[in-house]
């Protein structure tokens, strides 16, 4: 049992003990389930875990915020889908960018040449004709198609292969 008082600063300390962030390796695709299981296990075993983070960018890993590395390590041993826990903690600055994800269409501009990386047109190249920032969707015209048909896809479904600026720079 962890007594909450044990985390109180001593009379000489003026600052509160900062939590640490640990990285846990999980089965790929089971990150959210693992987070839920760790959450309920932490409640049962009364281990102080202020937060658990699952980011879509990092498959097979989750971040657990806590204080006692050894206790967390012992607790997760019997949690399903957990592979291992990486030694040591990481500073919050390293995961800060995950907490405020940028829009999927932020880096895409009209006129860019993109490659479809998902969906039925995977592998095809296309030109961006319209961007919907609110919905994070883009409208493209496939190069391969005989008749230019506008197709609307999600921003994550494309990869930029040539920017419009690069084209205009070369012409100059």
């Amino acid at each position, binding site marked *: 049992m962890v007594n909450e008082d044990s985390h109180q600063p001593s009379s000489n300390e003026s600052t509160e003990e900062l939590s640490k962030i640990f990285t846990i390796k999980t089965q790929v695709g089971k*990150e959210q389930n693992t987070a839920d299981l760790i959450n309920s296990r932490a409640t049962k075993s009364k281990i102080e875990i*202020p937060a658990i*983070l699952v980011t879509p960018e990092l498959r097979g890993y989750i971040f657990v915020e806590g204080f006692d590395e050894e206790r967390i390590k012992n607790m997760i041993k019997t949690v399903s889908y957990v592979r291992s826990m990486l030694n040591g903690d990481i500073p919050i600055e390293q995961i800060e960018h995950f907490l405020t994800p940028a829009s999927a269409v932020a880096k895409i501009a009209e006129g860019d040449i993109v490659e479809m990386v998902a969906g039925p047109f995977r592998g095809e190249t296309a030109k961006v004709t319209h961007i919907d920032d609110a919905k994070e969707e883009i409208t493209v015209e496939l190069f391969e198609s005989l008749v230019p048909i506008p197709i609307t896809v999600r921003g994550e479904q494309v990869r930029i292969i040539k920017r419009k600026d690069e084209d205009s720079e070369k012409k100059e």
Partner: protein
Amino acid sequence: MKNLKACKNCHLLTDNDVCPRCSLPTSKRWSGYVIIRDPDHSQIAKKMNITTPGSYALKVR
């Protein structure tokens, strides 16, 4: 797994079509998952300006 929906304003995950806190419509299109258990002692909660425990989405569309 339950089909959770996220509030477009506070990012709270809920089963309802309306956020129980903001009374705004929720969305099925969300990504990223954060469980805040103790916002007072969490660096992640502070960075995300979350003051209430619960499950949250990182991104809601």
